[in-house]
């Protein structure tokens, strides 16, 4: 494994899936409230409703209604580069205002598109310039977790 691949592997929260569709089609499903209401509905959630203001600096809200509890999620779009990259903050009920950052990359993969989600927890009020240290922090975390398991 080369160094770059290793760094990606150890940042831990990277999830990939190749979907047999165009990048445009998949990209749009991330910003369309009607689409989000369908695929942002995890097991145990009765209904999801979504609102999006799909521009950089615009906000979104995804409300997941469970049997007993409601799980609101919200954030702000940082990058909207259709159909290559989407970056938004992600704040949920239990994060007590803690801001996390989700980056979604849409890469050509044969006839389809590889969707790569990178989700990082950021210190409150962190700036872009902290991202590098943050990523290596996660890499180290993976090592420590392995060492102390």
């Amino acid at each position, binding site marked *: 494994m080369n160094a770059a691949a290793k760094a990606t592997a150890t940042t*831990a929260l990277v999830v990939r*899936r190749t979907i047999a569709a165009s990048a445009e*089609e998949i990209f749009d499903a991330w910003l369309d409230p009607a689409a989000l209401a369908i*695929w942002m509905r995890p097991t*145990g959630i009765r209904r999801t409703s979504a609102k999006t203001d799909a521009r950089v600096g615009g906000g979104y809200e995804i409300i997941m209604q*469970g049997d007993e*509890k409601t799980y609101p999620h919200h954030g702000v779009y940082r990058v909207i580069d259709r159909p290559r990259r989407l970056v938004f903050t992600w704040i949920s009920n239990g994060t*007590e205002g*803690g801001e996390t950052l989700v980056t979604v990359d849409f890469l050509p993969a044969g006839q389809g598109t590889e969707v790569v989600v990178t989700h990082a*927890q950021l210190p409150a009020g962190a700036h872009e310039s902290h991202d590098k240290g943050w990523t290596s922090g996660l890499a180290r975390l993976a090592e420590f977790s392995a060492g102390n398991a």
Partner: protein
Amino acid sequence: MPIFTLMGEYKSAGLDGVFNALGDPTRRAILARLQESDARVTDIAGAFPISLNSVSKHIRMLERAGLLQRSVHGRDHVLSLNAAPLAEASAWIEHYRTFWEDRLAALETYILDKKRKRK
């Protein structure tokens, strides 16, 4: 219990401190040193080319994040690693990994259903 309901229970206030603490090479090096064995503050300070004062600041930050414990034996302050917050942080990571894997599977189903209906 569906895995999703756990998400609302996560408290990130403590995790912020852990992730902040891990975002600095000196602090990571201190943790790496303590992973080998407990050490006195003076031993740690001697191992880094920075002042005792800045080493102390890093140590206090790690203490606040709950990543290390200090016990006082006479004049010696002995530091030991506390891995519990790291386990909590890695639980956060595993949790969201599962969340996104499931969401991407649902996204694929949504996209493919939509394509089928168009045909």
